[in-house]
């Protein structure tokens, strides 16, 4: 004990202090907390300043191309492209199929997310890995793979076209399949984070108050995960509307906006294609802002 104190440069209090305050006090008093907190604060502010440099570069990297493209448009060229029936149809198709994808993703993804938020069960890690797989698969590869199942000779595609009259090759249903494959991880992971963030005792408390498991889900878990679920739906929508690779392989026609823009670029060059691109960008940004606004209102914790 005493040796320990000597190592730290402390001794027993000098006799004066012993007399005044009694034995057992450590001397000198330790103030190192105050001394170093100042220098820590200084180095933190220095770090913060340094972090601004890459942050500004990053903002510029994202905003500059979008702004440059938008500012390059003349009102005339924009309105001319906006008047083209096939461009409007493509943008409309993109929005409607992305919304349909979002609905399907929610139906499949929310229960999956709930399952994955539960404590460990057999096969959980495998399921997690499978859910994340589309993030790693190149989108054209995904499109080819989907053709094997949903194409005209695919296992599912063949059966559904035979019995239900639903084909996935060159149809809206095919577009949804392509969008769904690439956007499901966003839906599941976002909703899952929502469920995982809920204190498990809230569900227990609800049970002791008389709620059945279904009531717990409806009155506690879903409302509390709602924000994350909605965020997942917005991400799914945005990812879906942006999808090119997987969609183009399943359905070149009917054309979604990204496919249409690519086609215009190949046929008429950058000018027309960029006007269509700005239109699509506007549609996406407006729907994004609207959804953000709707979600932003439900905020707690």
């Amino acid at each position, binding site marked *: 004990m005493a040796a320990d104190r000597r190592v730290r440069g402390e001794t027993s209090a000098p006799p004066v202090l012993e007399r005044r305050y009694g034995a057992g006090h450590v001397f000198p008093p330790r103030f190192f907390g105050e001394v170093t907190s100042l220098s820590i604060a200084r180095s933190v502010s220095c770090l913060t300043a340094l972090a601004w440099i890459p942050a500004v570069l990053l903002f510029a990297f994202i905003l500059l191309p979008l702004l440059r493209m938008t500012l390059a448009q003349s009102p005339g060229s924009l309105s001319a492209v906006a008047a083209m029936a096939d461009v409007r149809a493509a943008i409309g198709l993109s929005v409607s199929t992305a919304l349909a994808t979002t609905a399907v993703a929610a139906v499949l993804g929310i229960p999956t997310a709930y399952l994955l938020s539960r404590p460990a069960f057999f096969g959980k890690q495998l399921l997690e890995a499978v859910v994340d797989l589309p993030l790693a698969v190149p989108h054209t590869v995904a499109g080819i793979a989907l053709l094997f199942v949903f194409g005209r000779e695919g296992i599912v595609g063949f059966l559904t076209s035979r019995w239900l009259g639903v084909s996935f090759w060159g149809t809206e249903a095919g577009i949804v399949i392509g969008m769904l494959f690439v956007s499901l991880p966003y839906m599941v992971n976002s909703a899952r984070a929502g469920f995982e963030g809920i204190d498990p*005792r809230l569900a*227990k*408390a*609800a*049970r002791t*108050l008389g709620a059945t498991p279904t009531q717990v889900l409806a*009155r506690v878990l879903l409302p*509390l995960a709602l924000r994350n679920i909605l965020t997942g739906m917005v991400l799914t929508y945005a990812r879906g509307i942006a999808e090119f690779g997987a969609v183009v392989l399943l359905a070149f026609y009917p054309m979604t906006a990204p496919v249409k823009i690519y086609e215009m670029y190949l046929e008429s060059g950058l000018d027309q294609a960029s006007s269509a691109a700005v239109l699509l960008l506007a549609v996406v940004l407006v729907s994004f802002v609207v959804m953000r606004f709707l979600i932003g209102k439900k905020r707690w914790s």
Partner: protein
Amino acid sequence: MSYLNIAGLQVRLKAFAVDVSLTMDRHEVLAILGPSGSGKSVLLEALAGFHPLAAGTVSVDGRRLDTLPPEQRGIGFVFQDYALFPHLTVQENVLFSPRLRQNGSRVPRPVRDIMALLQIERLAPRRIQELSGGEKQRVALARALVSEPALLLMDEPMSALDTVIREELRNELRDLLRRLGTTAIYVTHDRAEAACLGHRVGVLFDGRLAQVDTPERVFHAPASPRVAHFVGMTNTFPALVTDRRNGLVHLRAGELYLEAAGGDHAVPGPKVTAGIRPEEIRLAPRGETASANSVPGVVTGVVPQGPWVRVTLDCGVVLDSLVSWRDFQLLRPAPGQTCRAVVEPQSVHLMPLPEH
């Protein structure tokens, strides 16, 4: 047949088991006192239906509970961090249970009464995040009480509160539970809380009840050295019974000779553990005439303990004494000095030797 009957309840978790039998009367509050990891929370959660029972039955008022899902047990639960619903207001939290059965905008009369009783009416429209710890505690209690549970379980509900608020709320909760006649099990690791709230106190070690008794018995006559240590009877030492005369048991522990009033407690054998609460050791000046159990000793330590001062004396056996500041000022014991430790024979408690 008692109101609450827990017969041979067993819960087995990984590397841990709870094994409890217990009966309680209607309107009784039982405080369960135990260190962290003793299985207090597991026991409560098992009663509420969140752990499957390996064996045993639980019945309240003649009704078997252990076969029912949690929502049908009629058990109220107040959690350690309150577990209030963060997406609901105070009023919506309190109304959670009534609204499950009946929708509507009317606030039922009993709900208003409970909210008035707990003084949370003015908080009704607030969000949970805006409440202080003490307010959250009241809301959690109100929410559990509105469904008039047959049994209320409380899992360290005050452990997150400041000392001063905790002491206020403790007394308030005691009055409230007694007034409402709630049958409750209150789990805590705080000795003062257990003694204050429980009609009886149960001491839980390693998933088993070591003693269930009135606060007086648990604190003054603990059943074993381990219970003694946990309830603050810090002076325990092995002693030899040398004689029994005039209702007094004569003890020897090394060089220390003591007498214990053996009247009501049986002497477990020739070798015993003697226990003395530190508050019941009085300090006297060296020269004071030797009465019964007045033993000289050298002061080895003086440490302030908030409301008390702990003075450690070496009397052959090391004895801790908690003295008031006033007594401390009268004697001013300092390390190295000699003074006397004085103990009434009624304050010397005899227990069996510790199990090994």
